[in-house]
C-alpha cells in the first residue's frame, strides 16, 4: 500500500458476542499493513455499524466477527439497514458461525440472505479479500465512467 493511499474499514464483533481477543488482533494486523480501522469492539449492534458507515462514507468494508454461534440473530436488523442505504459497502462475516461443532451449509446461505456479501473461515485471507473487493469496485467504477 502506498503511504498516500487511505484505506478505511469498519470492524466489530456481533451484538451478543463479547470475544475481544481475535477482534483486537485483526485490528492490530490490519493497521500493521496500513489500513485505518474504525474498531467498534465487542457487542456491536447493526445500528452501530450503520452509524460508523455514516461517519466513514469511504469505508471499503464492514467486517463483523462472531464466535458465539448467534450471528444470525445478531444480524437480524442487517436487511433493514441495507435496504435503508445505511450500509452500502461490502459486509464480511467471519468466525464461528453457528452453535454446535457440525456446520450446516444452510447456515451460510442464511447469512447471504441477510445481506452478508462474503463469509470468511480463515482470517488470514482477509487482506486478500479486501484487495479483491476493492479491485472489483474500481473495475465497476471504470466501467461506469466508460459507459
Amino acid at each position, binding site marked *: 500500500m502506498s503511504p498516500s493511499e487511505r484505506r478505511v474499514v469498519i470492524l466489530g464483533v456481533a451484538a451478543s458476542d463479547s470475544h*475481544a481477543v481475535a477482534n483486537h488482533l*485483526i485490528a492490530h494486523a*490490519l493497521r*500493521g499493513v496500513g489500513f485505518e480501522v474504525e474498531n467498534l469492539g465487542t457487542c456491536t449492534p447493526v445500528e452501530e455499524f450503520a452509524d460508523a458507515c455514516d461517519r466513514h462514507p469511504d469505508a471499503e468494508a464492514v467486517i463483523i466477527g462472531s464466535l458465539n454461534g448467534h450471528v444470525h440473530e445478531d444480524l437480524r436488523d442487517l436487511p433493514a439497514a441495507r435496504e435503508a442505504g445505511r450500509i452500502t459497502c461490502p459486509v464480511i462475516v467471519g468466525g464461528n458461525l453457528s452453535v454446535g461443532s457440525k456446520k450446516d451449509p444452510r447456515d451460510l446461505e442464511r447469512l447471504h440472505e441477510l445481506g452478508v456479501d462474503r463469509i470468511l473461515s480463515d482470517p488470514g485471507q482477509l487482506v486478500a479479500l479486501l484487495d479483491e473487493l476493492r479491485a472489483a469496485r474500481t473495475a465497476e467504477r471504470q466501467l461506469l465512467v466508460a459507459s
Partner: protein
Amino acid sequence: MTGGVTYLAGRGEAPGPGALPPLAESVDYIASLGKPTAASVLKAARDSGRVAIQPRCGVGGHQEMKALLRDLEERAAPDFLTLTIDSHTRLKRFEQALRTLNLSPGDLNGYPLVSHGYRRGRELNESVAAPLEIRHGSPDARILFDVAVASGITSFEGGGISYNLPYSKAVPLEESLTAWQDVDRVCGELAGLGLVVDRELFGTLTAVLVPPSISLAISVLEAVLAARAGVRCISVSYPQSGHLVQDVAALRAIPALARTYLPSGVEVHAVLHEFMGVFPKDRGHAEDLILYGALVARLGGASKLITKTYQEAFGIPDTRANAEGLRLADRANSRLLGFMTVDEQRVGEELDWILAEVAEIVEPVLAAPDTIPAICEAFAEGLLDIPFSASRYAKSGIIPKRDDEGAIRYLSTGSLPFSSRTRSRNSELLKGADAAGPVIGSLLAELADDINYFPILFQEMDSEVSK
C-alpha cells in the same frame, strides 16, 4: 418466600423500602461479631509466612449461599470466604436481580446481596468463622458497598479502572473512577471509626496474557487514589502468567511499588490469582497447575491466594471440587516444602525490569496535578492501555506475546510511553518478531497457542502454529 426480599440500600438509587444502619452501628456490629477482619487475617498470614487461601463462590438463593459457605468451611477451612455477586447486581439492575431471585434463583450467576438485603448479609457473616469478601465486577459499586459494610463484610474487591475496562463496553472511566473514589472515601471514614476495610484491586484485568507491568501499573494508580481517599489496607492482586521467574518477580514487585508510590501508613498485600486463562481438562493436569500456582504464591511472598479447581475447564465448580482445590492449594504451605527455591539472580533481574516498566507507565500520569483526569486522558491517548479491552475507553494497542520460555512480553507496545531500552528488550526477547506488520493468520495462530499454553503443555491440545 413471599415478601421475604426487600431492598435495603443506602443512597436512594435502589427501589424499595428500607434503610441501612449508620456506619458507626455497622462498626460496632463488626466488633461484636467476634471474628477477625480481613485486614487482620492478611496481616497474620504475612507475619507467619503462610499464604492465606480463598475460593470464589456465589449462588443466587440465600439458603443455598449459606449452605455453600458452611460446606466450604467445614470441608476446607479457607482463611477467607467469598460472596461472588450476580451480573444484574453488578450493573445496578436491581429490579432484574430481584425478579430472577423470586422466579428462579438458580439462574443467577452469583448472590444478589442488594436484593437480599443487609440482614441476610449479616446472617451469612454469622454462619461462618472466616471473614467474607465481595467479588463482583461493577463499574459503580456504591450501593453494593454500602450493603456490604452493613452486612459486616470487611473486604471488597474492585477499582475504577480494573472493574470497568474488562467488564463494560461504554462506561466512561471518569464515571467509574469517581464512583470508586466514593467507595474509598467511605473506607476512610470507617478507618476513622476504627474499622480497616481491605480494598482489593483487580489486577487480573481481562485475564488474557496480561503483561505484569500493565497489571501492576493499573494497580499502582488505583492504589494511589485509594490511599489518598483514606483506604488503610490495600490488596494488590496479580494474575499468574505461568512463568515461574516472571510471576515470583511480579509478586515481589508489589511491596517495592508500595514503598515507592504509597504512604507508609498503608498496609499493602500481594495476592496471587491462580491461572485465570484456559485450564487443562484432565483432573491431574488441572491439579498440577493448582499446586504450581500455590507454590508460586509462596515463593513470591503473597499474603493470599485465590484458588482454582479441577473443574475449571468445564465451568463453575461444585462445592466438592471447590473444597478440594482449596485443600490442594494449602498443601503448598507445608513445612516440608521449604527446600523449594527459585533462581534469585534471575528473579532479581526480572524484578528490576518490571519496576522500570511500571515507572515508565505510571510516573507521567502521577506527575500531573489531578490524577483522575490525567488517567482518563492517558487512556484516550493510549499512554495507558490494557490488552484486549472490552471497553472502548482503552485503545488496546498493546499486543502481548509469550517468549520462548513462556513469559509474557510486549509484541506491540502500542502508544505506551516506554523507553527505547524497554522496547528493545521486549523485541529481543521475542526474537524481533515483526510487530509492525504480522500476517493476520499466523498472529492469530501464535496468540491462540499462547492462550492455550497449559492445555498444549500438557499435550491435551495440538499447537495451532505447528498444524
